Protein backbone atom coordinates (compact mmCIF):
# COMPACT_ATOMS: atom_id res chain seq x y z
CA UNK A 1 0.00 0.00 0.00
CA UNK A 2 1.10 3.52 -0.56
CA UNK A 3 1.64 5.45 2.61
CA UNK A 4 2.61 8.66 0.91
CA UNK A 5 -0.58 8.71 -1.14
CA UNK A 6 -2.81 7.38 1.60
CA UNK A 7 -1.78 10.08 3.97
CA UNK A 8 -3.13 12.75 1.64
CA UNK A 9 -6.76 11.71 1.83
CA UNK A 10 -9.29 9.35 3.37
CA UNK A 11 -9.40 5.70 2.37
CA UNK A 12 -11.56 5.03 -0.64
CA UNK A 13 -12.93 1.83 -2.09
CA UNK A 14 -10.38 2.02 -4.89
CA UNK A 15 -7.56 2.04 -2.39
CA UNK A 16 -8.84 -1.16 -0.80
CA UNK A 17 -9.57 -2.85 -4.14
CA UNK A 18 -6.14 -1.94 -5.47
CA UNK A 19 -4.46 -3.33 -2.41
CA UNK A 20 -6.20 -6.65 -2.68
CA UNK A 21 -5.04 -6.66 -6.29
CA UNK A 22 -1.48 -6.11 -5.09
CA UNK A 23 -1.81 -8.86 -2.53
CA UNK A 24 -3.08 -11.26 -5.17
CA UNK A 25 -0.25 -10.35 -7.48
CA UNK A 26 2.29 -11.01 -4.74
CA UNK A 27 0.86 -14.48 -4.23
CA UNK A 28 0.91 -15.05 -7.97
CA UNK A 29 4.55 -13.98 -8.17
CA UNK A 30 5.48 -16.50 -5.51
CA UNK A 31 3.60 -19.33 -7.14
CA UNK A 32 5.13 -18.29 -10.45
CA UNK A 33 8.69 -18.50 -9.17
CA UNK A 34 7.86 -21.89 -7.67
CA UNK A 35 6.62 -23.14 -11.02
CA UNK A 36 9.57 -21.66 -12.88
CA UNK A 37 11.84 -23.98 -10.91
CA UNK A 38 10.61 -27.15 -12.63
CA UNK A 39 11.06 -27.91 -16.30
CA UNK A 40 7.48 -29.07 -16.80
CA UNK A 41 5.83 -26.05 -15.26
CA UNK A 42 8.44 -23.43 -16.13
CA UNK A 43 6.62 -21.88 -19.04
CA UNK A 44 3.28 -21.61 -17.28
CA UNK A 45 5.12 -20.11 -14.32
CA UNK A 46 6.52 -17.38 -16.51
CA UNK A 47 3.06 -16.73 -17.88
CA UNK A 48 1.69 -16.49 -14.36
CA UNK A 49 4.37 -13.98 -13.45
CA UNK A 50 3.45 -11.87 -16.46
CA UNK A 51 -0.21 -12.02 -15.44
CA UNK A 52 0.74 -10.96 -11.92
CA UNK A 53 2.60 -7.99 -13.31
CA UNK A 54 -0.40 -6.99 -15.40
CA UNK A 55 -2.64 -7.27 -12.36
CA UNK A 56 -0.26 -5.08 -10.36
CA UNK A 57 -0.25 -2.42 -13.08
CA UNK A 58 -4.03 -2.46 -13.36
CA UNK A 59 -4.35 -2.26 -9.59
CA UNK A 60 -2.05 0.72 -9.60
CA UNK A 61 -4.31 2.49 -12.09
CA UNK A 62 -7.28 1.68 -9.86
CA UNK A 63 -5.46 3.05 -6.84
CA UNK A 64 -4.51 6.28 -8.54
CA UNK A 65 -8.13 6.92 -9.51
CA UNK A 66 -8.88 10.00 -11.55
CA UNK A 67 -5.61 11.20 -12.97
CA UNK A 68 -4.20 12.26 -16.30
CA UNK A 69 -2.38 9.12 -17.40
CA UNK A 70 -0.94 10.55 -20.64
CA UNK A 71 2.68 10.22 -19.63
CA UNK A 72 2.18 6.83 -18.08
CA UNK A 73 0.52 5.49 -21.20
CA UNK A 74 3.21 7.00 -23.37
CA UNK A 75 5.85 5.27 -21.31
CA UNK A 76 4.01 1.98 -21.42
CA UNK A 77 3.58 2.09 -25.18
CA UNK A 78 7.16 3.07 -25.93
CA UNK A 79 8.58 0.58 -23.46
CA UNK A 80 6.25 -2.21 -24.52
CA UNK A 81 7.07 -1.77 -28.19
CA UNK A 82 10.83 -1.59 -27.65
CA UNK A 83 10.74 -4.56 -25.29
CA UNK A 84 8.68 -6.68 -27.65
CA UNK A 85 10.87 -5.90 -30.64
CA UNK A 86 14.01 -6.66 -28.71
CA UNK A 87 12.58 -9.95 -27.50
CA UNK A 88 11.47 -10.99 -30.99
CA UNK A 89 14.71 -10.04 -32.72
CA UNK A 90 17.25 -11.43 -30.31
CA UNK A 91 18.91 -14.72 -31.22
CA UNK A 92 19.09 -17.52 -28.73
CA UNK A 93 22.87 -17.22 -28.61
CA UNK A 94 22.54 -13.59 -27.57
CA UNK A 95 20.38 -14.35 -24.55
CA UNK A 96 23.06 -13.53 -21.98
CA UNK A 97 23.64 -10.03 -23.25
CA UNK A 98 19.91 -9.45 -23.72
CA UNK A 99 19.26 -10.32 -20.10
CA UNK A 100 22.09 -8.03 -19.06
CA UNK A 101 20.67 -5.13 -21.02
CA UNK A 102 17.11 -5.60 -19.73
CA UNK A 103 18.47 -5.82 -16.25
CA UNK A 104 20.28 -2.53 -16.71
CA UNK A 105 17.04 -0.86 -17.81
CA UNK A 106 15.35 -2.14 -14.65
CA UNK A 107 18.11 -0.66 -12.52
CA UNK A 108 17.95 2.69 -14.29
CA UNK A 109 14.17 2.72 -13.85
CA UNK A 110 14.62 2.35 -10.09
CA UNK A 111 17.11 5.21 -10.05
CA UNK A 112 14.70 7.42 -11.95
CA UNK A 113 11.85 6.46 -9.62
CA UNK A 114 14.04 7.53 -6.74
CA UNK A 115 14.82 10.89 -8.35
CA UNK A 116 11.23 11.42 -9.44
CA UNK A 117 9.95 10.70 -5.95
CA UNK A 118 12.26 13.37 -4.69
CA UNK A 119 11.12 15.89 -7.29
CA UNK A 120 7.45 15.10 -6.86
CA UNK A 121 7.77 15.67 -3.14
CA UNK A 122 9.59 18.88 -4.00
CA UNK A 123 6.90 19.94 -6.47
CA UNK A 124 4.09 19.12 -4.13
CA UNK A 125 5.82 21.11 -1.43
CA UNK A 126 6.01 18.00 0.67
CA UNK A 127 9.75 17.58 0.85
CA UNK A 128 9.79 18.68 4.42
CA UNK A 129 6.97 16.23 5.01
CA UNK A 130 9.21 13.45 3.98
CA UNK A 131 12.39 14.50 5.68
CA UNK A 132 10.81 16.17 8.63
CA UNK A 133 8.05 13.98 9.99
CA UNK A 134 8.22 10.74 11.90
CA UNK A 135 9.84 7.97 9.91
CA UNK A 136 11.18 10.43 7.38
CA UNK A 137 14.73 9.34 8.09
CA UNK A 138 13.70 5.94 6.81
CA UNK A 139 12.42 7.30 3.51
CA UNK A 140 15.52 9.43 3.13
CA UNK A 141 17.94 6.57 3.74
CA UNK A 142 16.05 4.43 1.30
CA UNK A 143 16.00 7.12 -1.33
CA UNK A 144 19.77 7.35 -1.26
CA UNK A 145 20.19 3.58 -1.26
CA UNK A 146 17.77 3.24 -4.16
CA UNK A 147 19.81 5.68 -6.19
CA UNK A 148 23.06 3.88 -5.40
CA UNK A 149 21.89 0.34 -6.07
CA UNK A 150 19.89 1.31 -9.13
CA UNK A 151 22.76 3.20 -10.72
CA UNK A 152 25.33 0.51 -10.07
CA UNK A 153 22.96 -2.03 -11.57
CA UNK A 154 22.52 0.14 -14.64
CA UNK A 155 26.11 0.82 -15.65
CA UNK A 156 27.31 -2.56 -14.39
CA UNK A 157 24.77 -4.29 -16.62
CA UNK A 158 25.69 -2.13 -19.58
CA UNK A 159 29.35 -3.09 -19.25
CA UNK A 160 28.33 -6.75 -18.92
CA UNK A 161 26.28 -6.34 -22.08
CA UNK A 162 29.16 -4.76 -23.99
CA UNK A 163 31.56 -7.48 -22.89
CA UNK A 164 29.22 -10.33 -23.76
CA UNK A 165 28.25 -8.92 -27.14
CA UNK A 166 31.95 -8.41 -27.83
CA UNK A 167 31.41 -4.73 -28.48
CA UNK A 168 34.14 -4.44 -25.85
CA UNK A 169 36.98 -6.84 -25.10
CA UNK A 170 36.03 -9.62 -22.73
CA UNK A 171 39.47 -9.44 -21.15
CA UNK A 172 39.60 -8.16 -17.58
CA UNK A 173 40.70 -4.54 -17.39
CA UNK A 174 42.64 -4.06 -14.19
CA UNK A 175 42.83 -0.44 -13.06
CA UNK A 176 45.57 0.41 -10.59
CA UNK A 177 44.36 0.48 -6.98
CA UNK A 178 40.93 -0.62 -8.11
CA UNK A 179 39.86 -1.90 -4.71
CA UNK A 180 40.65 1.44 -3.07
CA UNK A 181 38.91 3.21 -5.91
CA UNK A 182 35.77 1.10 -5.54
CA UNK A 183 35.60 1.65 -1.82
CA UNK A 184 35.94 5.40 -2.35
CA UNK A 185 33.26 5.40 -5.02
CA UNK A 186 30.93 3.72 -2.58
CA UNK A 187 31.78 5.74 0.52
CA UNK A 188 31.56 9.12 -1.17
CA UNK A 189 27.93 8.75 -2.31
CA UNK A 190 26.97 7.44 1.12
CA UNK A 191 28.59 10.48 2.72
CA UNK A 192 26.81 12.72 0.23
CA UNK A 193 23.56 11.06 1.27
CA UNK A 194 24.21 11.98 4.87
CA UNK A 195 25.06 15.51 3.78
CA UNK A 196 21.75 15.72 1.89
CA UNK A 197 19.86 15.12 5.12
CA UNK A 198 21.94 17.88 6.68
CA UNK A 199 21.00 20.40 3.98
CA UNK A 200 17.34 19.41 4.02
CA UNK A 201 16.21 23.03 4.17
CA UNK A 202 17.77 23.72 0.79
CA UNK A 203 15.94 21.53 -1.73
CA UNK A 204 17.93 22.68 -4.74
CA UNK A 205 21.18 21.74 -3.08
CA UNK A 206 19.72 18.40 -2.05
CA UNK A 207 18.63 17.77 -5.63
CA UNK A 208 22.14 18.50 -6.91
CA UNK A 209 23.61 16.20 -4.30
CA UNK A 210 21.29 13.40 -5.36
CA UNK A 211 22.27 13.84 -9.00
CA UNK A 212 25.89 13.80 -7.91
CA UNK A 213 25.28 10.53 -6.10
CA UNK A 214 23.81 9.02 -9.24
CA UNK A 215 26.72 10.13 -11.43
CA UNK A 216 29.36 8.84 -9.05
CA UNK A 217 27.68 5.47 -8.66
CA UNK A 218 27.39 5.25 -12.45
CA UNK A 219 31.18 5.23 -12.41
CA UNK A 220 31.20 2.67 -9.60
CA UNK A 221 29.13 0.26 -11.70
CA UNK A 222 31.76 0.51 -14.45
CA UNK A 223 34.77 0.07 -12.21
CA UNK A 224 33.22 -2.91 -10.47
CA UNK A 225 32.52 -4.83 -13.65
CA UNK A 226 35.43 -4.03 -16.01
CA UNK A 227 37.99 -6.11 -14.08
CA UNK A 228 35.81 -9.19 -14.45
CA UNK A 229 36.44 -11.43 -17.44
CA UNK A 230 33.77 -11.97 -20.08
CA UNK A 231 33.31 -15.57 -19.07
CA UNK A 232 32.41 -14.63 -15.55
CA UNK A 233 29.70 -12.30 -16.80
CA UNK A 234 26.79 -14.70 -16.17
CA UNK A 235 27.60 -14.67 -12.47
CA UNK A 236 27.86 -10.90 -12.59
CA UNK A 237 24.54 -10.64 -14.38
CA UNK A 238 22.91 -12.90 -11.84
CA UNK A 239 24.28 -10.72 -9.08
CA UNK A 240 23.22 -7.51 -10.79
CA UNK A 241 19.82 -9.08 -11.33
CA UNK A 242 19.63 -9.62 -7.61
CA UNK A 243 20.65 -5.97 -7.15
CA UNK A 244 17.89 -4.77 -9.44
CA UNK A 245 15.45 -6.67 -7.22
CA UNK A 246 16.94 -5.00 -4.17
CA UNK A 247 16.69 -1.63 -5.91
CA UNK A 248 12.99 -2.26 -6.54
CA UNK A 249 12.50 -3.27 -2.89
CA UNK A 250 14.30 -0.11 -1.74
CA UNK A 251 12.15 2.00 -4.04
CA UNK A 252 9.21 0.25 -2.39
CA UNK A 253 10.50 1.28 1.02
CA UNK A 254 10.92 4.84 -0.21
CA UNK A 255 7.38 5.21 -1.47
CA UNK A 256 5.89 2.75 1.03
CA UNK A 257 4.55 0.23 -1.49
CA UNK A 258 4.56 -3.26 0.02
CA UNK A 259 4.12 -4.94 -3.33
CA UNK A 260 7.43 -3.50 -4.50
CA UNK A 261 9.08 -4.57 -1.28
CA UNK A 262 7.84 -8.15 -1.59
CA UNK A 263 8.50 -8.68 -5.29
CA UNK A 264 11.80 -6.87 -5.13
CA UNK A 265 13.07 -8.89 -2.21
CA UNK A 266 11.85 -12.13 -3.77
CA UNK A 267 14.01 -11.34 -6.78
CA UNK A 268 16.84 -10.09 -4.60
CA UNK A 269 16.97 -13.21 -2.46
CA UNK A 270 16.47 -15.70 -5.26
CA UNK A 271 19.09 -13.93 -7.34
CA UNK A 272 21.60 -14.20 -4.49
CA UNK A 273 21.01 -17.93 -4.19
CA UNK A 274 21.24 -18.41 -7.93
CA UNK A 275 24.55 -16.56 -7.92
CA UNK A 276 25.85 -18.82 -5.20
CA UNK A 277 24.72 -21.93 -7.05
CA UNK A 278 26.47 -20.75 -10.21
CA UNK A 279 29.72 -20.01 -8.43
CA UNK A 280 29.62 -23.42 -6.81
CA UNK A 281 29.15 -25.13 -10.17
CA UNK A 282 32.26 -23.32 -11.44
CA UNK A 283 34.15 -24.27 -8.30
CA UNK A 284 34.82 -20.59 -7.57
CA UNK A 285 33.89 -18.37 -4.68
CA UNK A 286 31.78 -15.29 -5.22
CA UNK A 287 34.63 -13.16 -3.89
CA UNK A 288 37.01 -14.73 -6.38
CA UNK A 289 34.64 -13.83 -9.21
CA UNK A 290 33.89 -10.33 -8.00
CA UNK A 291 37.44 -9.25 -7.28
CA UNK A 292 38.03 -9.95 -10.91
CA UNK A 293 41.13 -10.60 -12.96
CA UNK A 294 40.32 -14.24 -13.68
CA UNK A 295 41.65 -15.02 -17.14
CA UNK A 296 43.69 -11.79 -17.32
CA UNK A 297 46.85 -13.75 -18.03
CA UNK A 298 47.48 -17.39 -18.86
CA UNK A 299 47.28 -19.44 -15.68
CA UNK A 300 50.21 -21.23 -14.12
CA UNK A 301 49.04 -24.59 -15.33
CA UNK A 302 50.36 -23.97 -18.83
CA UNK A 303 49.89 -21.52 -21.67
CA UNK A 304 46.81 -21.89 -23.80
CA UNK A 305 48.51 -23.10 -26.94
CA UNK A 306 51.90 -24.37 -25.89
CA UNK A 307 53.90 -27.52 -25.55
CA UNK A 308 51.58 -30.27 -26.59
CA UNK A 309 53.28 -33.59 -27.32
CA UNK A 310 51.87 -36.45 -29.34
CA UNK A 311 48.62 -34.82 -30.41
CA UNK A 312 46.88 -36.76 -33.18
CA UNK A 313 44.54 -35.24 -35.72
CA UNK A 314 41.84 -36.66 -37.95
CA UNK A 315 39.81 -35.18 -40.75
CA UNK A 316 36.03 -35.02 -41.00
CA UNK A 317 35.82 -38.03 -43.31
CA UNK A 318 37.68 -40.27 -40.91
CA UNK A 319 35.50 -39.14 -38.05
CA UNK A 320 32.39 -39.84 -40.12
CA UNK A 321 33.63 -43.31 -41.03
CA UNK A 322 34.27 -44.30 -37.44
CA UNK A 323 31.02 -42.87 -36.11
CA UNK A 324 29.15 -44.72 -38.84
CA UNK A 325 30.02 -48.02 -37.21
CA UNK A 326 29.60 -46.92 -33.59
CA UNK A 327 26.85 -48.32 -31.39
CA UNK A 328 26.78 -45.64 -28.73
CA UNK A 329 27.79 -42.06 -29.33
CA UNK A 330 27.90 -39.24 -26.79
CA UNK A 331 28.07 -35.62 -27.89
CA UNK A 332 29.72 -33.19 -25.45
CA UNK A 333 29.02 -29.60 -26.46
CA UNK A 334 30.87 -26.56 -25.17
CA UNK A 335 31.25 -22.87 -25.71
CA UNK A 336 32.69 -23.42 -29.18
CA UNK A 337 29.40 -24.89 -30.35
CA UNK A 338 27.69 -21.66 -29.35
CA UNK A 339 30.34 -19.55 -31.09
CA UNK A 340 30.08 -21.61 -34.27
CA UNK A 341 26.25 -21.67 -34.04
CA UNK A 342 26.61 -25.37 -34.75
CA UNK A 343 23.60 -26.68 -32.82
CA UNK A 344 21.45 -27.30 -35.91
CA UNK A 345 24.26 -29.10 -37.69
CA UNK A 346 24.77 -31.22 -34.57
CA UNK A 347 21.14 -32.21 -34.57
CA UNK A 348 21.18 -33.03 -38.26
CA UNK A 349 24.24 -35.24 -37.89
CA UNK A 350 22.71 -36.95 -34.87
CA UNK A 351 19.56 -37.76 -36.82
CA UNK A 352 21.53 -39.40 -39.61
CA UNK A 353 23.51 -41.45 -37.13
CA UNK A 354 20.34 -42.47 -35.32
CA UNK A 355 18.86 -43.64 -38.60
CA UNK A 356 21.94 -45.76 -39.04
CA UNK A 357 21.14 -47.41 -35.72
CA UNK A 358 23.43 -45.65 -33.25
CA UNK A 359 22.26 -44.53 -29.81
CA UNK A 360 22.86 -40.81 -29.37
CA UNK A 361 23.16 -39.00 -26.06
CA UNK A 362 24.18 -35.46 -25.21
CA UNK A 363 26.22 -34.89 -22.06
CA UNK A 364 25.85 -31.38 -20.71
CA UNK A 365 28.31 -30.06 -18.17
CA UNK A 366 26.74 -27.62 -15.70
CA UNK A 367 29.06 -24.79 -16.71
CA UNK A 368 29.55 -25.60 -20.36
CA UNK A 369 29.23 -22.44 -22.41
CA UNK A 370 29.10 -19.04 -20.84
CA UNK A 371 25.90 -19.12 -18.84
CA UNK A 372 24.05 -21.81 -16.93
CA UNK A 373 21.86 -23.87 -19.17
CA UNK A 374 23.55 -22.28 -22.19
CA UNK A 375 23.90 -25.63 -23.96
CA UNK A 376 20.41 -26.77 -23.02
CA UNK A 377 18.89 -23.69 -24.55
CA UNK A 378 20.86 -24.06 -27.78
CA UNK A 379 20.20 -27.77 -28.12
CA UNK A 380 16.54 -27.25 -27.36
CA UNK A 381 16.47 -24.60 -30.08
CA UNK A 382 17.71 -27.24 -32.51
CA UNK A 383 14.90 -29.56 -31.36
CA UNK A 384 17.11 -32.06 -29.63
CA UNK A 385 14.66 -34.22 -27.65
CA UNK A 386 14.80 -33.60 -23.94
CA UNK A 387 15.16 -37.33 -23.28
CA UNK A 388 18.57 -37.42 -24.95
CA UNK A 389 20.02 -34.71 -22.71
CA UNK A 390 21.99 -35.98 -19.74
CA UNK A 391 23.50 -34.02 -16.92
CA UNK A 392 27.09 -34.72 -16.03
CA UNK A 393 26.26 -36.70 -12.89
CA UNK A 394 23.90 -38.96 -14.77
CA UNK A 395 26.34 -39.99 -17.45
CA UNK A 396 29.82 -39.50 -16.07
CA UNK A 397 30.28 -43.10 -14.91
CA UNK A 398 29.09 -44.45 -18.23
CA UNK A 399 31.73 -43.01 -20.56
CA UNK A 400 33.78 -46.20 -20.32
CA UNK A 401 30.99 -48.04 -22.18
CA UNK A 402 30.79 -45.48 -24.96
CA UNK A 403 32.21 -46.09 -28.44
CA UNK A 404 32.67 -42.54 -29.66
CA UNK A 405 32.63 -39.25 -27.82
CA UNK A 406 32.31 -36.14 -29.94
CA UNK A 407 33.57 -33.04 -28.12
CA UNK A 408 32.23 -29.99 -29.93
CA UNK A 409 33.96 -26.81 -28.88
CA UNK A 410 34.28 -27.81 -25.25
CA UNK A 411 37.61 -27.48 -23.54
CA UNK A 412 37.81 -26.77 -19.81
CA UNK A 413 34.83 -28.97 -19.05
CA UNK A 414 36.57 -32.03 -20.55
CA UNK A 415 40.06 -31.39 -19.22
CA UNK A 416 41.26 -34.47 -17.29
CA UNK A 417 43.98 -32.45 -15.57
CA UNK A 418 41.25 -30.89 -13.40
CA UNK A 419 41.18 -34.27 -11.66
CA UNK A 420 44.92 -34.69 -11.24
CA UNK A 421 46.91 -31.48 -11.52
CA UNK A 422 46.80 -29.66 -8.20
CA UNK A 423 48.43 -26.57 -9.63
CA UNK A 424 45.75 -26.11 -12.28
CA UNK A 425 43.20 -23.35 -11.70
CA UNK A 426 40.61 -25.89 -12.74
CA UNK A 427 41.66 -28.35 -10.04
CA UNK A 428 38.65 -29.55 -8.13
CA UNK A 429 36.07 -28.62 -10.76
CA UNK A 430 34.21 -31.78 -11.75
CA UNK A 431 34.81 -32.60 -15.43
CA UNK A 432 33.43 -35.06 -17.96
CA UNK A 433 35.37 -38.33 -18.08
CA UNK A 434 35.39 -38.33 -21.88
CA UNK A 435 38.88 -39.84 -22.05
CA UNK A 436 37.44 -43.12 -20.76
CA UNK A 437 35.54 -43.72 -24.01
CA UNK A 438 37.01 -45.90 -26.76
CA UNK A 439 37.52 -43.00 -29.19
CA UNK A 440 37.26 -39.24 -28.73
CA UNK A 441 36.99 -36.66 -31.49
CA UNK A 442 37.61 -33.11 -30.35
CA UNK A 443 36.39 -30.42 -32.72
CA UNK A 444 37.98 -27.02 -32.33
CA UNK A 445 39.90 -24.61 -34.42
CA UNK A 446 43.32 -25.01 -32.83
CA UNK A 447 45.08 -26.19 -29.70
CA UNK A 448 44.08 -22.85 -28.15
CA UNK A 449 42.93 -22.71 -24.55
CA UNK A 450 39.42 -22.46 -23.21
CA UNK A 451 37.99 -20.00 -20.78
CA UNK A 452 40.53 -20.79 -18.06
CA UNK A 453 43.48 -20.79 -20.52
CA UNK A 454 44.84 -24.05 -19.21
CA UNK A 455 46.64 -26.81 -21.09
CA UNK A 456 44.21 -29.62 -21.81
CA UNK A 457 45.79 -33.05 -21.33
CA UNK A 458 42.86 -34.66 -23.16
CA UNK A 459 44.45 -33.57 -26.44
CA UNK A 460 47.47 -35.80 -25.69
CA UNK A 461 45.43 -38.89 -24.87
CA UNK A 462 46.17 -41.81 -27.23
CA UNK A 463 42.47 -42.32 -27.99
CA UNK A 464 41.81 -38.64 -28.79
CA UNK A 465 41.82 -37.18 -32.28
CA UNK A 466 41.63 -33.46 -32.96
CA UNK A 467 39.35 -32.43 -35.80
CA UNK A 468 40.52 -28.90 -36.52
CA UNK A 469 38.28 -26.19 -37.93
CA UNK A 470 35.18 -24.23 -37.20
CA UNK A 471 32.73 -26.63 -35.54
CA UNK A 472 29.89 -25.96 -37.93
CA UNK A 473 32.03 -26.40 -41.03
CA UNK A 474 33.46 -29.63 -39.67
CA UNK A 475 30.00 -30.94 -38.86
CA UNK A 476 28.74 -30.09 -42.33
CA UNK A 477 31.61 -32.03 -43.83
CA UNK A 478 30.79 -34.98 -41.59
CA UNK A 479 27.15 -34.84 -42.62
CA UNK A 480 28.17 -34.80 -46.25
CA UNK A 481 30.42 -37.80 -45.74
CA UNK A 482 27.73 -39.69 -43.84
CA UNK A 483 25.18 -39.06 -46.55
CA UNK A 484 27.55 -40.24 -49.23
CA UNK A 485 29.00 -43.16 -47.32
Amino acid at each position, binding site marked *: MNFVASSSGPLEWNYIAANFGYLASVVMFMLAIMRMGRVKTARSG*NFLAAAAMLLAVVSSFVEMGKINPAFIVAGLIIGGAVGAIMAKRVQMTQMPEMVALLNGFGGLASTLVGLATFYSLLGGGTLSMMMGREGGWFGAINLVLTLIVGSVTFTGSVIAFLKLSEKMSGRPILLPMRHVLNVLLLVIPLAMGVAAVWFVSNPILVGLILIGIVLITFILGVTIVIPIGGGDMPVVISLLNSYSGIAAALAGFTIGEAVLVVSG*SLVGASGMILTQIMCKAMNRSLANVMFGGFGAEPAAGGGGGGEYVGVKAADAETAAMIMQDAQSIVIVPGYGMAVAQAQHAVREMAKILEDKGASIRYAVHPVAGRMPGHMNVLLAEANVPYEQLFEMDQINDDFRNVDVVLVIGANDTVNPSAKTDKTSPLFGMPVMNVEEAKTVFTMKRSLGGGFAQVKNTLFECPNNYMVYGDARKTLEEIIKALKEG
Partner: protein
Amino acid sequence: MDTGAILMLLYVFVLACFAGYQLISKVPPTLHTPLMSGANAISGITILGAMLAARIGPGAPFNASTILGMLAVALATINVVGGFMVTDRMMGMFKSKN
Protein backbone atom coordinates in the same frame (compact mmCIF):
# COMPACT_ATOMS: atom_id res chain seq x y z
CA MET B 1 5.07 6.53 7.02
CA ASP B 2 5.11 5.98 10.77
CA THR B 3 7.38 3.66 12.69
CA GLY B 4 4.70 1.00 12.84
CA ALA B 5 4.41 0.93 9.08
CA ILE B 6 8.18 0.82 8.70
CA LEU B 7 8.41 -2.15 11.02
CA MET B 8 5.67 -3.87 9.06
CA LEU B 9 7.55 -3.30 5.83
CA LEU B 10 10.59 -4.82 7.49
CA TYR B 11 8.55 -7.90 8.41
CA VAL B 12 7.36 -8.13 4.84
CA PHE B 13 10.91 -7.75 3.63
CA VAL B 14 12.30 -10.48 5.88
CA LEU B 15 9.53 -12.90 5.01
CA ALA B 16 9.86 -12.25 1.30
CA CYS B 17 13.62 -12.79 1.40
CA PHE B 18 13.04 -16.06 3.18
CA ALA B 19 10.42 -17.16 0.68
CA GLY B 20 12.72 -16.21 -2.19
CA TYR B 21 15.51 -18.25 -0.68
CA GLN B 22 13.28 -21.28 -0.18
CA LEU B 23 11.91 -21.06 -3.69
CA ILE B 24 15.18 -21.24 -5.53
CA SER B 25 17.15 -23.89 -3.72
CA LYS B 26 17.27 -27.03 -5.87
CA VAL B 27 16.48 -25.64 -9.28
CA PRO B 28 18.16 -27.71 -12.02
CA PRO B 29 20.99 -25.89 -13.85
CA THR B 30 19.07 -26.13 -17.12
CA LEU B 31 16.64 -23.60 -15.78
CA HIS B 32 19.13 -21.15 -14.34
CA THR B 33 19.24 -18.90 -17.37
CA PRO B 34 15.48 -18.70 -17.98
CA LEU B 35 14.89 -18.32 -14.26
CA MET B 36 17.35 -15.47 -14.13
CA SER B 37 15.63 -13.75 -16.99
CA GLY B 38 12.19 -14.38 -15.49
CA ALA B 39 13.26 -12.98 -12.13
CA ASN B 40 14.75 -10.08 -14.02
CA ALA B 41 11.35 -9.33 -15.54
CA ILE B 42 9.74 -9.47 -12.11
CA SER B 43 12.21 -6.88 -10.84
CA GLY B 44 10.51 -4.55 -13.32
CA ILE B 45 7.83 -4.22 -10.64
CA THR B 46 9.50 -0.89 -10.05
CA ILE B 47 7.13 0.17 -12.83
CA LEU B 48 4.53 0.83 -10.14
CA GLY B 49 6.73 3.48 -8.59
CA ALA B 50 7.38 4.91 -12.02
CA MET B 51 3.66 5.16 -12.78
CA LEU B 52 3.08 6.99 -9.53
CA ALA B 53 5.73 9.51 -10.50
CA ALA B 54 4.49 9.93 -14.08
CA ARG B 55 0.88 10.62 -13.17
CA ILE B 56 -0.63 14.06 -13.33
CA GLY B 57 -3.42 14.64 -10.87
CA PRO B 58 -4.32 15.94 -7.42
CA GLY B 59 -1.08 16.62 -5.57
CA ALA B 60 0.98 15.64 -8.60
CA PRO B 61 1.39 18.57 -11.01
CA PHE B 62 3.35 18.35 -14.23
CA ASN B 63 7.02 18.89 -13.50
CA ALA B 64 10.43 17.28 -13.81
CA SER B 65 9.10 14.31 -11.90
CA THR B 66 6.54 13.57 -14.60
CA ILE B 67 9.18 13.32 -17.30
CA LEU B 68 11.51 11.29 -15.12
CA GLY B 69 8.54 9.08 -14.31
CA MET B 70 7.67 8.58 -17.93
CA LEU B 71 11.22 7.61 -18.74
CA ALA B 72 11.17 5.21 -15.81
CA VAL B 73 7.88 3.72 -16.99
CA ALA B 74 9.34 3.17 -20.45
CA LEU B 75 12.52 1.57 -19.13
CA ALA B 76 10.70 -0.62 -16.64
CA THR B 77 8.25 -1.70 -19.35
CA ILE B 78 11.10 -2.71 -21.63
CA ASN B 79 12.43 -4.76 -18.76
CA VAL B 80 9.05 -6.35 -18.08
CA VAL B 81 7.80 -6.98 -21.59
CA GLY B 82 11.17 -7.93 -23.04
CA GLY B 83 11.96 -10.06 -20.02
CA PHE B 84 8.81 -12.12 -20.00
CA MET B 85 8.82 -12.60 -23.77
CA VAL B 86 12.43 -13.68 -23.88
CA THR B 87 11.87 -16.04 -20.97
CA ASP B 88 8.87 -17.50 -22.72
CA ARG B 89 10.93 -18.10 -25.84
CA MET B 90 13.62 -19.85 -23.84
CA MET B 91 11.26 -21.95 -21.79
CA GLY B 92 9.20 -22.85 -24.81
CA MET B 93 12.25 -24.63 -26.14
CA PHE B 94 12.32 -27.19 -23.40
CA LYS B 95 9.85 -29.53 -24.93
CA SER B 96 10.02 -33.27 -24.98
CA LYS B 97 9.85 -35.43 -28.06
CA ASN B 98 6.27 -36.52 -27.44
